[in-house]
C-alpha cells in the first residue's frame, strides 16, 4: 500500500481519506447526528475523486471504505470514545466540509484548517459556572419556585459543576457522573431545606435536574431514527434512558440512606 499513484490527473486518495475521517470523528464528538457525519464524509470522498464510498457510523465507531478511480480499495476504522458537545466547532467543521466539496483544497490546507479548529476554545470555566446558575435558577423559577429556591438552586449548581469536574477526573463515565451529581444534589437540597434556607425542595431539585437530563442524546436519537440510522438512534436513546435512570438512582440512594425520613 506504499506505492504512489503514477497518474498526475488522479490525486492520491489516502491522505484525503484520513482527513475526511478526522472531520467525521470530530463532528461526531462535537454532537452531530450520525446522518450528518455519514453524509459529510461521503460528500468529501466523492469530491476528492472516489468512485464508490461506503460509510457506516454509529455513536461509538465509524467504518469507511473507498474505491478510487484507480480501482484500489482503501478502508479505515475509527473508534470514537469521547463526547464533548461543542457546537461552535461543529459549525466550523461543517463549513470546512462544504468548502472541500465546492473548491479543491490540498491536504495541507485541510490539515491547517483542522488544526485551527482544534485550537477553538470553550467558554472559560467561570462562564460555564454562570451558565449552570442561569439554567438551574431560571428553571427553578420556571417550574413555579420562589426567589429563595432560585438562589439555593444557583449555589448548588455551582457546586455541581465542581462535582462534574471531579467525576470526570475520577472515572470518565457519563452515567456515573450523573449518578454522583444527582446524589450530591439531593443531599445538598434537603440539607438546605432542613436549615431553613428555602421552603420547599421540589423546585430546587427540578431546576438542577435540568442540567443533568440527557437532552442532546435524546434529540439526536430522534433525528437519527427518522433519517434511517436506526441502530445509532436506538443506541443514543438507550444512553438517554440510562442517564435518566442514573439521575433517579442517585435520588433513590439518598432516600434509602436516610430511611426516607428526610424526604
Amino acid at each position, binding site marked *: 500500500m506504499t506505492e504512489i499513484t503514477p497518474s498526475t490527473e488522479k490525486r492520491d486518495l489516502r491522505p484525503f481519506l484520513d482527513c475526511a475521517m478526522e472531520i467525521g470523528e470530530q463532528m461526531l464528538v462535537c454532537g452531530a447526528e450520525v446522518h450528518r457525519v455519514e453524509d459529510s464524509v461521503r460528500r468529501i470522498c466523492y469530491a476528492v475523486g472516489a468512485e464508490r464510498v461506503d460509510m457506516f457510523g454509529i455513536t461509538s465507531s465509524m467504518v469507511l471504505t473507498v474505491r478510487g478511480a484507480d480501482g484500489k480499495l482503501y478502508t479505515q476504522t475509527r473508534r470514537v470514545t469521547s463526547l464533548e458537545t461543542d457546537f*461552535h466547532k461543529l459549525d466550523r467543521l461543517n463549513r470546512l466540509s462544504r468548502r472541500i466539496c465546492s473548491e479543491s483544497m490540498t491536504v495541507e490546507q485541510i490539515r491547517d484548517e483542522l488544526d485551527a479548529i482544534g485550537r477553538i476554545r470553550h467558554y472559560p470555566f467561570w462562564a460555564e459556572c454562570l451558565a449552570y446558575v442561569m439554567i438551574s435558577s*431560571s428553571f427553578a423559577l420556571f417550574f413555579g419556585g420562589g426567589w429563595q429556591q432560585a438562589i439555593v438552586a444557583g449555589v448548588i449548581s455551582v457546586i455541581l459543576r465542581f462535582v462534574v469536574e471531579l467525576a470526570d477526573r475520577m472515572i470518565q463515565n457519563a452515567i456515573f457522573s450523573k449518578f454522583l451529581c444527582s446524589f450530591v444534589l439531593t443531599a445538598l437540597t434537603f440539607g438546605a431545606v432542613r436549615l431553613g434556607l428555602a421552603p420547599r425542595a*421540589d423546585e430546587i431539585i427540578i431546576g438542577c435536574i435540568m442540567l443533568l437530563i440527557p437532552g442532546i442524546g435524546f434529540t439526536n436519537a*430522534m433525528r437519527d431514527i427518522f433519517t434511517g440510522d436506526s441502530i445509532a438512534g436506538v443506541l443514543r436513546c438507550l444512553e438517554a434512558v440510562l442517564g435518566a435512570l442514573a439521575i433517579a438512582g442517585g435520588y433513590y440512594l439518598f432516600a434509602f440512606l436516610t430511611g426516607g425520613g428526610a424526604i
Partner: protein
Amino acid sequence: MTFPEFFQILVAAVGSIGFAILFNIRGRRLLSVAVGGGLCWLLFLLLNRWIENEAGCFFLVAMLVSLYDELMARVLKSPTTVFLLPSLVPLIPGASLYYTMVGAVSKHQADFLARAVQTVELAGALAIGIIASTLIVRIINWILALIRLQKNKNSAKK
C-alpha cells in the same frame, strides 16, 4: 398575557442561553437560540388555551419550534442540531421526571405509575414533534428540487 406568564417566557429564554453557553454557541446563533427558547413557551401558553391535552400541545410546540430552528439553520448556515436542543429545553419534562422519582421513593404505586406515564408521554410528544418537522422539511426540499428541475428543463428547451 399576565405578568407571571411573561416572566415564565423570560426565564425560559434565559435557561436556553445557559445551555447555549454550555454547548459553546456564539454570537448571532446565541441570540436566535434565546428567541427559540422564549418562543417555545410563548407558543405553549397560547396553544394551551385551546388545546386541553398537554402532550398534544407539546407535540405542536416542538414541531413549530423545530421548524423555526430549521429556518434559522438555513439563514445562519449551521447544522440544525446547533439550534434544536437549546431552544427546545423548556419542553424537556424535568418536572415530571422528578415527580416520578418522588413517586418511586414513596409507597404510592398508583401515583408513581401515573407520573411515569406522563413523563414518557411528554418525552414522546417532544420526539414526534421533532420528527414531524424533519419530515416537513424533507418534503419541502423535495418539492423545491422538483421545481428547480422543471425550471432547468424549461431553460434548456429555450
